[in-house]
């Protein structure tokens, strides 16, 4: 790509300054669907260029959806009603997690993430030698970074769940949605408490995550909010939670994730229920195509861009280029597992809601994601099953 060549010829210091912008522009020019570009570009600018999430002040996002009232209180969606009942029964209290457990992020016996999560050899090949202690610290930085992103994602989920509850037109869905709001509030509570009292390190929101949250919070269309939050971000969350759940040896975090995953499984299930019929029957072809492209772009964003750049800025800004860092992270074993778990959950759900038509399949294929096509969707998979599957792996 042209801009890559230009970048390579720039002096190191100049490159460091412009690289993030070049990346942002590349990202936007790769989007082929003009409608998608139009709806995502403002978010892209706010997140990637202006870095609104990192300005150190609260971010105020306008939202343009309509609040849907129904004064007849219909029983309109038995599956959602059922999900509502289950959600009520499965409520839990964040205080009941084993908070007394002492967490030492640098403990080698009960590491938060296994040593092999990052490929340190790869770093060595790039001329960076870390001492044993530094490797452990880097590892724990990445763990803090991941958990910080979970926390920011949960904040997004909290508000998105509230919006979606307002906007959805099924009354049973609204009732269910109220439990999801509580769930997400609890997730914010427990992740924050973990980061605040156990790890003592909180990273800023990743620019790409900001873009996704910004896009779906500001979008006026309820189904795009749904798609963004319940399918994409929740899918990302499930992938990330599942990976960490599988890998961590830290008992408090493991228990925390086990509880959170069971909630999230319901959330994705709800998304699938709400969107399946809507996408199949209510949307015009071009509208459906737009959603399909939107989902694909977001999937790529999550696959390619969720790469701990904040850790890079803290540790290696003057030693590696962003591109080198991106390669290093992309190739590290931990992130490979993470991508796999994430798409294993996400792709079958996209299929289920009808956003994997023959038109888009080749794109997914090229991105290496079609192998997940036949997996079980959230509708067919309960939280318990998910945990059992992770435990067995």
């Amino acid at each position, binding site marked *: 790509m042209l801009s890559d060549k230009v970048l390579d010829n720039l002096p190191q210091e100049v490159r460091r*300054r412009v690289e993030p912008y070049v990346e942002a522009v590349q990202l936007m020019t790769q989007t082929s669907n003009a409608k998608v570009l139009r709806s995502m570009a403002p978010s892209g600018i706010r997140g990637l260029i202006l870095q609104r999430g990192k300005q150190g002040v609260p971010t105020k996002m306008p939202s343009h959806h309509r609040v849907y009232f129904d004064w007849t209180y219909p029983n309109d969606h038995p599956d959602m009603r059922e999900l509502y009942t289950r959600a009520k029964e499965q409520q839990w209290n964040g205080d009941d997690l084993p908070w007394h457990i002492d967490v030492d992020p640098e403990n080698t016996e009960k590491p938060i993430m296994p040593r092999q999560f990052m490929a340190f050899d790869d770093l060595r090949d790039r001329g960076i030698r870390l001492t044993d202690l530094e490797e452990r610290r880097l590892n724990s930085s990445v763990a803090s970074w991941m958990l910080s992103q979970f926390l920011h994602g949960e904040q997004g989920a909290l508000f998105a769940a509230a919006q979606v509850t307002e906007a959805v037109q099924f009354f049973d869905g609204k009732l269910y949605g109220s439990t999801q709001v509580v769930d997400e509030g609890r997730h914010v509570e427990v992740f924050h408490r973990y980061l605040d009292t156990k790890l003592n390190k909180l990273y800023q929101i990743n620019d790409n995550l900001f873009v996704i949250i910004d896009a779906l919070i500001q979008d006026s269309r309820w189904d795009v909010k749904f798609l963004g939050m319940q399918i994409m971000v929740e899918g990302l969350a499930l992938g990330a939670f599942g990976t960490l759940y599988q890998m961590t040896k830290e008992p408090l975090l493991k228990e925390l994730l086990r509880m959170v995953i069971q909630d999230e499984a319901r959330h994705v299930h709800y998304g699938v229920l709400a969107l399946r019929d809507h996408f199949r029957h209510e949307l015009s072809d071009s509208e459906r195509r737009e959603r399909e492209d939107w989902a694909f772009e977001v999937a790529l964003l999550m696959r390619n861009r969720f790469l701990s750049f904040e850790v890079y800025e803290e540790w290696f800004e003057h030693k590696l280029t962003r591109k080198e860092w991106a390669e290093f992270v992309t190739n590290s074993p931990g992130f490979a597992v993470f991508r796999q778990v994430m798409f294993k959950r996400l792709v079958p759900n996209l299929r289920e809601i009808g956003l994997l038509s023959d038109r888009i399949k080749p794109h997914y294929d090229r991105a290496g994601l079609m192998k997940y096509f036949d997996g079980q969707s959230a509708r067919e998979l309960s939280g318990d099953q998910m945990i059992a599957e992770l435990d067995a792996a």
Partner: protein
Amino acid sequence: MVGKRQARVGRFDVAAALAARALPGAMTPLIEQARLDAKMILERASGRAPSPLIGEQAEPAPLREVDLLSILPRAFVEKLRSAERDVRMLTGRLILGKNPSPLIERSRPAAGAVVSLPRKTPAMTRPLKVTDVIRETDDAVSIYLTEADGSALEFRPGQFLSVDVIIDGERCRRAYSLASACMAGTPRHITVKRIANGRVSNHLNDTIRVGDELAVLGPSGNFTVEPRPVNERHLVMIAGGSGITPIMSILETILRLEDRSRVTLIYGNRSWKDVIFRDRLAALRDEVGDRLIVDHVLEHAPEDWSGGRGLLTRDVLEGRLDALGIQDDGLQRYFLCGPTPMMQAAHEALQARGVAANRVAEERFTRPEEREGAKGSSEAELVMISRCGHEHGIQVEPGQTILEAALAAGIDMPFSCAMGGCGACRVRLTSGDVRMEEPNCLSRAELEQRYVLTCVGRPHAQSSILVEGA
């Protein structure tokens, strides 16, 4: 400017501030005066007279602090500020080469003042399953227990469980010793004797059933022995009433695991029918022969009773020790458990015979009615806990113990019985004032070294404690 309101910034203030910035500094006082004058005239004209009271007037914002944007519409100003931040972000990165910090920095309270807000105390107890209930005497019942998953309870002979019972909505915690021999395959049980007006002991005697759950902590306590088959020793034990329970566990464990050790037990009771484990002791005696000598002493003995009579007072005890021909050989170990006067008498009798205090072990069970509750402060108090080199401040609410508050704050504190009986929660008080329920298991020496028990300790002032060896 404590106590003074600052006046709203108006058009005049902004005009004056603009002028002050544009004109030479020498003009500033003039402009300042003009501003105040103009304001006064304007306010008068609009019917608002200045307040007649001194100190009531709102203070005008100092000229150099007047925000020039403040007369613009709020929404517009917000947009402007946001744009300002955007530009700063861009120029920072592109021109100055400065990224925003990847970490979120929040102002932290000064070191050592991290204060956790009080939260719900996590449950400290765990449920055990009641697998059998056996009546030992008219007013004593043995309750057989396993862990909730059916596995055997781990304990050392002589240790006790803290049992929580909820009666009329109130949590009552009592200590009951495990009375079984500590051997694989032997079912574990506690034995509960009715105490006159004892809420928990009567409740358990009346209501406990197979299949119930019992909430417990522990086992805890250091009134114990380490059985070793090679040992050949003589243990002398003195028990009164239900004080037999830990003694029974120790003596049976020792007799069964140490083939050459022997035990002499002086055991006082009110009457023959009150003797807990009467048959079990007799059976054990048949089994091990001379290695076990049981000397029953009865307060109300039948006519034909040939054994000891009376309460276990010093005189009676000395008489029994003589009658049993027990000479202290400088090696024997003594185990005491019973009512306080009996323990006192036993200590005196043994001391008179020249037995060194370190060979006498005792277990004190105080009747809850005798315990003196230590009321904490009536306000929440700050307690600083240092542990593993970290300092953590917690808020202890009135009614909470330090242990409860610390656990609620997620701090890993040592404890076992949570009723002042085992010493596991001992910490050193480095400053402040902590009061404890009495009596508790701390020795006088420990008290002098400013040790406190967090499980029964409540702060009376801001205090600091040190968790040792963590």
